[in-house]
C-alpha cells in the first residue's frame, strides 16, 4: 500500500512534466498543424543556457528565466527562418526538416559541450514529505506540480479569455476566414511556436534534475512519452494533454516499480498503439478523424 502511494505520487510529479511537454506539442499543433519532431532538441538548447547562467550567477531563478527567454526566441527564429520555408504541398516535409534540425542541434551541442552528463541540481530538496509515515512527494515534486499548474492555467486563460487567445484559436482552426477578418495568421503561427518551445524548455528544465544530468539527448525519452500522452489526450486538446500526461507518468512509475524498468517503454508503446488503433483522434478530442 505504502509503495503504491509512493509510486502514485512520484508518477504524478513526473507526469506533470510530461503533461507540460505534451501541452507544448499541443500548442504548436494547434497553431501550425504540425507535430514538431524537433521539440526535444529545441527544448534542450535553452536548458544548456540555463545551466550556463546558473553556474555563472549561482541563481536557479535567473537560469529559469533565461531558459524561458531562450526557448521563446528559439521557437520564433525556427518558425520564421526555417519552418516557413518548408514546402507545404507535402505533409512529410515538415517532419523531415524537423529530423534534420534534431541532428544539427544535438550534434552541435555534443560538439560544443562534449558528451558528458552535466549534473544539475534542483532548487528544492527532493526528500519526500511524509504524511502519516507514508512518503509522498518531495518539495521539488510539489514545485514541479505548482509550476506546471500555473503555466497551464496561464495558457488556458490566454487562449480562452483574451482577444489574443481568440485570434490564436481562430487562426489555427480557420486560417482563411481569420485572414479575411483581419487576423494576422502568420504572426499567430509564429506566436504558437514561441509559446510552445518556451513551454517545452520549461518542462525539460524541470525534468533534468531528476535524471543523470544534462546531455544533448536528455529530453529524447520525454518527447516520446509526451508524444504518446498528447496522442492519447488528443493533439488538439490541452485538457487531454494534462490528463494523459499525468496518466502516462503514473503508468511509467507503476510499471517500473512493480515490473521492471525495461517494461516501461514497451508499456508506453502498447498504450500508444492501442489508442491509435481504437481512437486515433485521442480520448479527449472533440473533432472526428484527423487528416494532418
Amino acid at each position, binding site marked *: 500500500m505504502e509503495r503504491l502511494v509512493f509510486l502514485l505520487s512520484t508518477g504524478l510529479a513526473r507526469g506533470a512534466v510530461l503533461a507540460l511537454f505534451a501541452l507544448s506539442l499541443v500548442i504548436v499543433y494547434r497553431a501550425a498543424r*504540425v*507535430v514538431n*519532431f524537433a521539440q526535444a532538441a529545441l527544448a534542450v538548447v535553452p536548458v544548456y543556457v540555463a545551466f550556463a547562467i546558473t553556474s555563472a550567477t549561482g541563481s536557479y531563478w535567473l537560469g529559469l528565466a533565461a531558459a524561458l527567454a531562450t526557448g521563446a526566441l528559439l521557437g520564433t527564429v525556427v518558425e520564421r527562418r*526555417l519552418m516557413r*520555408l*518548408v*514546402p507545404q504541398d*507535402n*505533409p*512529410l*516535409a515538415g*517532419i*523531415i*526538416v524537423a*529530423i*534534420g*534540425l*534534431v*541532428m*544539427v*542541434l*544535438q*550534434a*552541435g551541442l*555534443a*560538439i*560544443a559541450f*562534449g558528451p558528458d552528463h552535466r549534473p544539475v541540481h534542483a532548487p528544492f530538496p527532493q526528500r519526500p514529505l511524509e504524511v502519516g509515515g507514508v512518503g509522498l512527494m518531495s518539495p521539488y515534486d510539489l514545485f514541479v506540480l505548482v509550476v506546471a499548474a500555473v503555466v497551464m492555467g496561464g495558457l488556458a486563460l490566454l487562449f480562452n479569455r483574451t482577444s489574443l487567445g481568440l485570434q490564436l484559436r481562430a487562426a489555427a482552426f480557420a486560417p482563411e476566414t481569420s485572414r479575411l477578418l483581419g487576423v494576422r495568421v502568420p504572426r499567430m503561427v509564429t506566436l504558437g511556436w514561441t509559446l510552445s518551445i518556451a513551454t517545452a524548455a520549461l518542462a525539460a528544465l524541470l525534468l533534468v534534475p531528476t535524471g543523470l544530468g544534462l546531455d544533448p539527448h536528455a529530453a*529524447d*525519452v520525454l518527447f*516520446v512519452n509526451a*508524444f*504518446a500522452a498528447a*496522442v492519447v489526450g488528443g493533439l488538439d486538446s490541452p485538457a487531454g494533454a494534462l490528463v494523459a500526461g499525468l496518466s502516462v507518468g503514473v503508468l511509467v512509475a507503476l510499471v517500473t516499480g512493480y515490473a*521492471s*524498468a*525495461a*517494461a*516501461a*517503454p*514497451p508499456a*508506453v*508503446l502498447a498504450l*500508444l*498503439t492501442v489508442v*491509435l*488503433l481504437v481512437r*486515433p483522434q485521442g480520448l479527449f478530442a472533440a473533432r472526428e478523424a*484527423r*487528416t*494532418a
Partner: protein
Amino acid sequence: MRLLLRAGLLTLLALGATFLLDPYRNYQLATATGVFAAVAGLTLLVGLTGQLSLGHGVLMAAGGYGYALTATRVESAIEGTPVADGVGGRLLPLLAGVAGALVTSGLLGLLLGLAAARLRGPYLAGLTLALVIALPSAASTIPGLAGEQGVRAPFVPVPDTLALLIATEQWHAWLAILVAACAVTPLVALRAGRAGLRMRAVHDDETAARLAGVDPGRVKAGAFVLSSLAAGLGGAVLAIVTQQVSPGAYGLGFSLLLVVAAVIGGLGSLGGAAIGAVLVTLLPWVVDQATAALPADLGHRLQGNLEIALFGVVVIVVTVLRPGGLARLFPDRKPFPSHVLSNTVR
C-alpha cells in the same frame, strides 16, 4: 523479363566490382548493400505512399534476429547428419535464415502496416519512433533475444571451390549483393506495375482512389509489409556479414540515418537509395579519418557528431530547396499524366 535481365546485369556488375576492392572495402560494400536494401524499402514507402517510418532500423533488427535465430537453429539441427558436410550444410542455414528474416520482419511489418493503414504522417512517425525507443527494452524482455549482448548468427565460410579465389569479406559481399538484389528487384517490379499505380493513386487522393475501387487501407498496409520485407532482408545481410545482432546497433540514430539516406537520394528513387546508403555508410568513416589528424580533444568532439550535423544540414537543404534529392541530378522522370493513372486503376 527486361526487368530481370537488368537486375541480373546490375547484380553481375556489382559482383564484379568486388574484385576491385580489398577485404575491408568489401566489408564496407557489404554493409552499404544491407543498408541499401532497407533504404530502398523505405524510400518507396515514403515516396509512393507518403507513409514515413522512423523505425525502419527496428524492422532491420527484426530481420536480423529472424535470420540469426533460424540459421542457428537449422545449423545445430543438421549438425552431425550427412547433410551438414555437403553444400547443403552451407546453404541450408543460410536459406532458412533468410526465410526467417522474411517471416519476422514481415510479421512486424504487418502489425505496423495495419496501424499504418489507419494513420497518417505524424502519427505513424511517432508510433515508429516509440518502437525504436522500446527496442532495447524489448530485446531484454523477450526471451531468446539475449538483451543488450545480442544473438550470434552462424558464420558462412567461403565455399571450398572459391576459397582459393576470394577472401571471406568478398564472399560476404557477394551474399550481401545477392540478398539485396532479391530484396530490391521485386520493389522495382511492383513500382512499375499496377501496385505502384495504386500506391500513387492512394497517395495523391485517397477519396478518388476509393472511388476508383482501390482500398487505401489495403494498399498502405501492403506497401508497409513490402517495405518491411526489404528492410528485413537488409537486416539479414548485416547479420550474415557481422555474425551478430544486438539492439545497440539499431538505435534511434541508425533509423534516422536510413531516413537521411532516403531523403538525400530522393524519396521514391531506388538509384538515389543506393547513393544515400553509400553516403551514410562511408561518411562517418571519412569524418573519422579526417578528425584523426586533429588534436585529440577537438577530434573526439567532432568524431561521431560532425557527420550527423552535416547530414542534418543536407536533409534540411534538400527538403527545402531540392525535394528530388540527388537522384534529380539525373534526367527527370516525367510525372504521370492523370488520365493514364485513372485508366489503369480502373
